[in-house]
């Protein structure tokens, strides 16, 4: 089983160090520390195990180190910054693993960019040695990219000439959208195996600055301080991200607030989220509660559960979201998040929730939300309804059921706090063609909405009463399970994101469409393909037909 939980004392590949407002995250990959056997992680090449630690470090820097305003990304190895994803790992991994690995890698990179943009924790990449492929992709997640000019170190995206695949984990898109490299120069860059070094790298905007070795360390320190000075981050005491309490069983995993029950016959995972039992009264209480504050605890658990399902339960095609608890409490949690949003910790929690919800959007499983009596789809938790491919709400009350009717509640957070990758709130995305519906929903913030209300407002797909509920729900789930998983993945990825493209949607879209296509083609993975032949010295045989 692949476990996404780790902590700095267990890192094998990264070294974290702190100097006031500047933290250094140094890559020092243990060649023998790979997730699977059969390959060595030489030259700071990475597999998922390296990325899991990176994601953990990035997360901890945000929560545990409010004093850190600049993170310097660098290599602890001589002559190499990072050689990118390990080729032998890619050659040996299943297609599903590769796709999920790339997706997670990219989510982590977006989290780095999110920290720079929204947390006042700015990343600085200090490249000494070569940054190739994923190594360069990683470097350009930083706000500011420095390259040592020792006439040897350089940056490159050698995937195409070297491996016949793409710098697909955001490399190409960041080149054009973030670095704004001219397209023809980008073409040259991506077809030149050895890449670019020195002044040309600056001229082409591949890096921001080159510095000779004699002034390298001083310059890196200076730039780190400059970045720190521009930050609005002001916390004092961090919040420890304590280990998640989890219990795995054959049929799922249980956390304090999230329960995953797998129905293997139905190839479905039933994910139930518990609303908050008690909440702190004020900001001080939030800080004291730390990682046990419900929104933070729930977000971390849901995040872990999603990753677990993605990597360890590939046969589960359907995720059914349910909630249980008091909607008023969820709304109370939301008001705390709203009231204290300028506090650094509350800001981090909101941003984490945003990222977890994005992780839901990016999960290639059918998502169904069932809004039943005694559920608490309110505010933040209602995001799951809007993230789902279908949502079904129980209308009225069941005979002999004293729980009262199912409800749905909106909070201000549904309209502002959790934008999707395309920059729209899930509601704005949902009502892309009906601006009036968005306004009508906004007018009902805080109201208790019945199934009829929710259906009329367009907030749920269908409302069924007791007579139809069981059958209709069963039919939806069974029908879903009968479709082609590939076609569903494609359909859902298309329909979930309406309207505008952003760098983020472009990265995921292109990763899915092009890189994954190439990863399936004989030119890459066939017996005579580039990945199989890599390292053998024998050139791949390409089928010359353009598709």
């Amino acid at each position, binding site marked *: 089983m692949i476990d996404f939980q780790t902590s700095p004392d267990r890192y094998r590949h990264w070294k974290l160090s702190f100097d006031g407002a500047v933290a250094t995250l140094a890559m020092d990959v243990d060649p023998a520390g790979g997730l699977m056997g059969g390959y060595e992680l030489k030259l700071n090449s990475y597999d998922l195990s390296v990325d899991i630690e990176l994601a953990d470090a990035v997360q901890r820097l945000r929560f545990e180190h409010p004093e850190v305003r600049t993170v310097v990304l660098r290599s602890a190895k001589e002559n190499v910054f990072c050689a990118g994803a390990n080729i032998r790992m890619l050659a040996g991994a299943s297609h599903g693993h590769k796709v999920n690995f790339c997706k997670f890698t990219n989510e982590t990179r977006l989290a780095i960019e999110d920290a720079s943009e929204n947390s006042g924790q700015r990343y600085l990449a200090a490249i000494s040695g070569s940054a190739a492929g994923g190594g360069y992709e990683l470097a350009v997640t930083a706000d500011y990219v420095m390259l040592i000019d020792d*006439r*040897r170190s350089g940056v490159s995206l050698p995937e195409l000439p070297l491996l016949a695949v793409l710098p697909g984990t955001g490399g190409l898109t960041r080149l054009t959208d973030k670095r704004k490299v001219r397209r023809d120069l980008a073409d040259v860059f991506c077809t030149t195996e*050895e890449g670019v070094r020195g002044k040309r790298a600056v001229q082409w905007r591949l890096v921001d600055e080159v510095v000779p070795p004699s002034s390298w360390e001083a310059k890196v320190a200076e730039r780190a301080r400059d970045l720190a000075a521009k930050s609005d981050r002001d916390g004092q005491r961090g919040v420890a991200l304590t280990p998640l309490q989890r219990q795995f069983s054959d049929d799922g995993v249980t956390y304090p607030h999230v329960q995953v029950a797998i129905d293997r016959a139905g190839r479905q995972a039933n994910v139930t989220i518990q609303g908050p039992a008690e909440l702190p009264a004020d900001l001080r209480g939030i800080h004291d509660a730390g990682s046990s504050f419900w929104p933070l605890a729930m977000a971390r658990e849901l995040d872990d559960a999603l990753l677990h399902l993605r990597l360890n339960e590939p046969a589960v095609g359907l995720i059914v979201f349910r909630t249980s608890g008091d909607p008023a409490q969820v709304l109370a949690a939301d008001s705390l998040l709203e009231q204290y949003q300028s506090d650094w910790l509350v800001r981090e929690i909101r941003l984490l929730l945003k990222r977890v919800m994005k992780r839901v959007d990016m999960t290639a499983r059918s998502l169904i939300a069932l809004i039943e009596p005694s559920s608490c789809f309110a505010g933040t938790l209602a995001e799951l309804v809007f993230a789902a491919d279908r949502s079904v709400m129980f209308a009225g009350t069941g005979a002999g059921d004293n729980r009262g009717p199912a409800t749905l509640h909106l909070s201000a957070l549904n309209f502002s706090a959790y934008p999707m990758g395309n920059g729209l709130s899930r509601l704005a995305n949902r009502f892309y063609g009906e601006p009036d519906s968005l306004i009508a929903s906004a007018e009902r913030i805080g109201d208790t909405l019945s199934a009829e209300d929710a259906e009329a407002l367009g907030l749920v797909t269908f409302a069924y009463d007791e007579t139809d509920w069981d059958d209709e729900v069963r039919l939806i789930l069974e029908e879903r399970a009968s479709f082609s998983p590939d076609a569903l993945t494609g359909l859902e990825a298309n329909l979930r994101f309406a309207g505008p493209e952003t760098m983020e949607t472009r990265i995921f879209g292109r990763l899915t469409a092009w890189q994954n296509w190439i990863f399936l083609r004989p030119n890459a993975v066939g017996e005579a393909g580039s990945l199989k032949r890599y390292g053998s*010295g*024998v050139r791949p045989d390409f089928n010359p037909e353009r598709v």
Partner: protein
Amino acid sequence: MSDGAAMGIGQIDYDGLIPNNVGLAEDQRVRKALETWHPGYIDWWKSMGPEGFQGSSVYLRTAVGVGAEGWAKFGFVRMPEYRWGILLAPKVEGRTIPFGAHKGQPAWQDVPGEYRAMLRRLLVIQGDTEPASVEQQRHLGATAPSLYDMRNLFQVNVEEGRHLWAMVYLLQKYFGRDGREEAEELLRRRSGDQDSPRMLGAFNERTPDWLSFFMFTFFTDRDGKMQLAALAQSGFDPLSRTCRFMLTEEAHHMFVGETGVARVIQRTAEAMNEAGIDDPYDIERIRRLGVIDLPTIQKKANLHFSLTLDLFGNEISTNAANAFNAGLKGRYREDKLTDDHQLTASTYPVLRLRDGAIIKDEVPALSALNMRLRDDYVEDTMLGIGRWNRVLERAGIDFRMTLPHVAFNRRIGEFSAVHTDTAGAVLSAEAWIRQQMAMLPSDDDNQFIASLMQPSWQPGRYAGWIAPPRHGIDNMPGDFEYVRIEN
């Protein structure tokens, strides 16, 4: 002259600015590029070449033909006026690519597009070593133990300069604008410079004294020989021809190193015998004789051998496999080997580190080409060590020079992760610190050697720590003035 090489023996055109046998007179584009590069080269030579002797007349050999018979002509020349040129070994008609995926096809006369980047990298790495050693050795003239040795140093230096020319010619002729830029870069990097060092580690180390120089030419120039021998097999014919000619010059560099160290050993042995010292480890007494004790010579050999092994790169190498399969870089004496010359189905034993132990592993032969070249190198080096030991044998001294284990003192490859002793036994970090001084030159050793480095510039006179050579250069008499020192 059309193509002198086509006539079977190389005719050299000395009419233009740049002596050559490649028809430069008719090749406007390349001639212009080389003439543009030339002043920068002369500037580099004057600022980074032998320090203090640019105005001296040196008895140097200059190539006058690339055929087997008599290609060298000796005469006095001031080094900045040396006739550096572009000399290729004669073209072999009908030559085919000797190995790799394209084996049997006609050798390439132009760079195949798909291998352009790989070839350029090979040339740049080789080319970078040539000026590097000149830079490393530039201070040595001042402490030359004789005019004979000084002349040999300068001969090596001008030939390394010519090797740079050879690589620059290929870059400028076949690699367009990139090639010209790389040619300029070759003049900009500096050995040991923090901001723009030479590309390979051993070429950024200092060559502080003459024993280091001899060791360098013995060990490190021999790596050059192995690399050139592998490139001389190339399916890219201009590279093959260039390297074949360079090899004839490289042989002299190794002669300088091998005989240099042999003469140091001989002098030490003689001094010990004269003083009646049997114990080679009686270091204090031996040093008082003004000669270098044998254990210190061994330590210097340990150092230079291990630094040079790093130049062969990682034992398992994709780049080496690619270059072989592409037909660009062969094995040592590929033409004498009798296998399929493709290696797609064979394996080769490689020493590897597994859980802290050194073991032998059979790996696909294509990926093990660096290892194989290194093995050939070690074998070639052993022959020279044997000749050093014959000096000791003849002198009746109970000491034999040896090569340390290939895992000793490595910074690149499998063994960079461990410390070992010279026999290859893995050492803990503390044991390494304790034993290092007995295996590698200490500051003390280096200071002692430095103290001996006093110039001896009288014709026919030699510093007390080195024996005279058996023969003069070009059969000149013992008191011949090889360098007319003028400043």
